[in-house]
Structure formats: C-alpha cells, structure tokens
C-alpha cells in the first residue's frame, strides 16, 4: 500500500475564500457585538443620544440653530467610530481572549484576506449607521438634505465608511502587539471629537492640532459630507472625495504593513497571546 503523496496532502486556501469566510464568520466569532439587538442599538440609539447630547451642550454654550445643525451632522458621522474603529479593533482582542489568535497566525491563510474580510460587515453597518444619523439630523436637528444631494452623500458616506474601517484595521494591527485595543479605540473616539471637526470647525484650534486633525480619516469624511450638504460644486467635492479615498487607501495600506510588523513583533515577544 503506498502512502499518499506529500503534495496532495497540502491545502492552499484561496484569497477569495479566506476573505469570504472571514467576512461571514468574524461577526459571529470575534465581532462580539453582532447580536441583532445590539447592532440595532448601535445603529439607532447611539447616534441619536450622541447628537442630542451635543446639541444641548452647544445650546448651553450659546449656540443657535446653525450651530446645532453643525454639531448634528458632525456627530451623525462620528458615531461611525463605534461600528468601524471599535468593532474592528476588538476582533484582535476577541481572538486573543479566546486563544484563537495564535491558531489564525499559524494557518497558511492569506493575511490580507484574513484581516480585511473582517472589515466587510463593519463597512456595511457603518454605512447604515451614518445614514441613520443623517436621517435624524434632517428630522430632528434642522439639517436640510435636498434629495438631489443624495447620490453625492452616498459617495461621501461610502468612502467615509471604508476609510474608518481601514483606520480600525490599522489600530487593530497595533493591538496585536498591545494587550488590548480598547485603549486605542477610546483614544481615537475622544480624539475624533476634538480634532475631526465634529462639534466645531478645525480652524478654531491651534495650527498644530489642525494638522493632527487632517491626518484623521474622519476629518475628511465629515468635511466631504458637510460639503455635499452645503451645496459645494462637484469639483470641490471631488477633491474632498479624493482626500477621503486617499485616507482610506493609506489606512488600509498602513494596516497591512502594521499587521505584518506587529505580528512579527508580537510573535517574537510572546505578546500575541497576552491580553
């Protein structure tokens, strides 16, 4: 009886299969918030409460309808942070806690597909979250959204969702090396409130902080959406879309590099299993 040939016993998972599997499985295994009731809560409750909160703060700070509308749009978009940055970062945490991170990394699965597959569902949820937020802005906070702007809004929102998920993956890569990603997620949640033009124009901050804000994808996403609502020309919007797309590309690109780098660091220091 002959033994099976060695080459026949080696499987090579395809990129697309890995991407698909992770897209489908990650919400159930490591994107722990993927219970339907929590997704609904994240999409419908968080945007509303965050927008109401800052609307009252602005009102107390002497702001009027214009300022309230301004902050409503900013917060409608900013709440995408929960479904993009937080949840994607947490895939790393979740895998470490369950002890599956090492098993993933020892597999021959394509890393790009492994990590980016996990971003697919968060992108969809992010799109929905921003759409819900903008709907609230129109219905409750006096924001005018002409029907003619919807296609341009859709482009802006889609690009923003991609950019934010890419950013989340970037932070998730760093979280490979750290114990937990919650810290990073929290930092950028707060930083976003300050530096991304969510509640007040960036121009009111000192110049160095403006530069820092310009480095964040959320800043450009919010800027693009504000531009659409303000009726900016297509050429102006194209520049902003380009900026968001660039932020998305840079985020994804840096994420790839960071995941590879921190995977190596984490494997050499043993922190891959630490949480």
């Amino acid at each position, binding site marked *: 009886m002959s033994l099976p040939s060695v080459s026949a016993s080696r499987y090579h998972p395809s990129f697309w299969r890995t991407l698909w599997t992770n897209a489908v499985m990650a919400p159930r295994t490591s994107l722990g918030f993927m219970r339907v*009731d929590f997704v609904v809560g994240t999409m419908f409750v968080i945007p509303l409460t965050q927008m109401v909160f800052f609307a009252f703060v602005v009102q107390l700070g002497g702001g009027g309808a214009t300022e309230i509308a301004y902050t409503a749009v900013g917060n409608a978009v900013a709440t995408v942070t929960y479904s993009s940055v937080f949840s994607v970062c947490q895939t790393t945490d979740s895998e470490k806690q369950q002890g599956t991170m090492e098993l993933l990394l020892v597999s021959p699965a394509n890393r790009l597909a492994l990590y980016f597959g996990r971003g697919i569902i968060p992108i969809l949820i992010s799109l929905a979250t921003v759409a819900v937020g903008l709907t609230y802005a129109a219905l409750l906070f006096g924001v005018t959204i002409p029907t003619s702007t919807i296609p341009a809004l859709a482009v802006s929102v889609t690009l923003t969702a991609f950019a934010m998920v890419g950013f989340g993956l970037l932070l998730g890569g760093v979280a490979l090396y750290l114990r937990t990603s919650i810290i990073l997620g929290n930092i950028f949640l707060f930083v976003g409130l300050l530096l991304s033009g969510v509640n007040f124009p960036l121009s009111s901050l000192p110049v160095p902080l403006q530069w820092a804000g310009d480095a964040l994808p959320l800043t450009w996403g919010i800027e693009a959406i504000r531009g659409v609502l303000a009726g900016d020309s297509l050429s102006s919007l194209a520049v902003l879309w380009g900026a968001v797309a660039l932020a998305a590309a840079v985020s994804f690109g840096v994420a790839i590099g960071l995941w590879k780098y921190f995977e190596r660091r984490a494997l050499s220091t043993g922190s891959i299993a630490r949480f």
Partner: protein
Amino acid sequence: MTESTLALETRGITRVFESRKGFLFREVTRTEALAGIDLTVDRGAIFGLLGPNGAGKTTLVKILSTLLLPTKGTALILGHDVVKESEWLRPRIGLVLGGERGLYNRISGRENLRYFADLYGVPLSERERRITEVIDRVDMAWAADRRVEEYSRGMKQKLHIARGILHRPEVLFLDEPTIGLDPKSARETRKLVRSLVADGVTIFLTTHYMFEAEELCPEIAIISKGRVVARDTVGKLRELVGGDRTLEAEAYGFDDREVEALHHLPGVSKIVSEEFGPVSRLTLRVRTEETRPEHLRALLPNHPELSVRERRTSLEDVYLDLVEEEAH
C-alpha cells in the same frame, strides 16, 4: 444538631440547561446535563468521579461547590444544603477547576493568592505564612513572584491547586487536577492529595486518568450522560463487568464457532470482539482462576499466529464497558 458523618450527600440532583437561538422566533433547546444523581461520600475520604467528556462531571462539581443551582434534587455538603446554606459552606470548601483561565494574568502568583486569601478571610497574622506554605507545597516558590501570564500550563495548574487549599477547606473539589502536569509534578500532586486526606480533608476528584483514579480512590463512581452508571470500590467494579481477570487473544480472524466455544470455558462472563485492521482481538472477562491462556490456545488450534495475554481487568476496561453499555 449532631454532625453528619457524610461529607457529601446528593439526592436526585438534576440539572437542565436551556439555550436560546434566533432573534424574533427564539428556539429553545433543553439539555439535561444531570439526570438524577444520588451519591454519598464519607468524611475524610477520597472519592473519584469518572466519565467521558460531556457526561456531567464538571456540572456536578459546580453544583456541589455552590457555583451552580440544581434544577431539581438536593445536595448536602457537611450536612448543609448547597443552595440554602451556601454562605456557611463557602469558607469550608475549596474548588480547583484548573485550566488556562481563572487567574489574574497581569499580577504574580503570590499576589493572586494574597487576593484570594483576603476574600476567604485567612487571618492576616497567618496570611503570608500560609501563602508561602501552599506555594512550597505545590513547588512553585521559584516562580511565585512572576506574572501569571509568564507561567506554563502546568504552573498555572499548580497555582490553581494552591489557591484551592489556601483557606484549609474541609472538602476539596478537584476537577482534573493533574491535567497539563508533567509526570513528576503529577506524582507530586497525587502525593499532595494523599497528604490532604491525612489532614482530614475530604477530596472529590474528577479525572480522566484511570491509573490515577485507581491509585488514589478507594471508591469511584462512573457517570455517563448525566447518570451514575456504577459506584463501588475498584475491585467490585471489576466484578461488575465480568471479572477480575482478562484474557486477550489476537489472531487473523476468529470464526463464530471458535467464539462460541470460548463462551463455554469456566468462569467466562463476557467476550468482546474488536478488529484492528487485519488483526482480530477477543477480550474475555473471567471470574474464576480456572480458565487459563493454555485453554484458549487449545480451543484455537487453527491460528499459528495466535497470541494470548493475561492481565488484571483494569479500571479502564470497566469504564469503557460501562460507558459503551450506557451509550447503547
């Protein structure tokens, strides 16, 4: 109230788990993990509980250690009800679940013990001495001040045991205590278990290692699918499955007439037939000394390749026989 002589007594302990799936139309699945367990264990004894994975061993241990409520039935530890008198019981029982989890990874082993010593109220004047004592007892002095996240699996297991005995419990539940330990550490753990019994501690042990159960436990229960299928001393359990002696015959195939003939040998209570590729094995359980290997050879002359082995019926044989019986 006179003190009970029993350390543990259960009557009809049943535990059903419900799990729900789905969002709008929730499907409920009920799993009966324990289906009426009756057990007694004397004070100062070591009692072993064996069973396959999913049999309900850990579920029972958690109920007895007040970590889980039974669906039905009663359980008394040291004469006190595990449900109604858990506050009285918790200072007096220890639980070692073991495994990779269950410890604070970012602090040292010693700090973990210090914390639990405080939660258990080990007197402050005695605390540090007691911590050092249990650390020495599990041979972890060299690593006690390192972070738990740097520990190997075996080291974590030892720390679990140290924590379990820190407050000098009267009853100690050990859920697979030697899992993950190297042979030397495992042997030391078994020695520790015996020394605890010498100190008067009652031990309730679950294990997968048959030799460990045989070595440590005068009395054993075998649990399968939530029921106790057998409970007795190891010797009597051997009788239960057909005898203290086992004869094994291996050859390239046996026909039915040969097997029938073997059934008629004196004292043969059971014959199990197994195939291992081209080789067939007949395992005979024999109650008496009359039937010997040469009798088998005499009845199987057509097998020049025949090999016959005699051994004592092991606990593993008992376990496999009973568990397979329950499965069918």
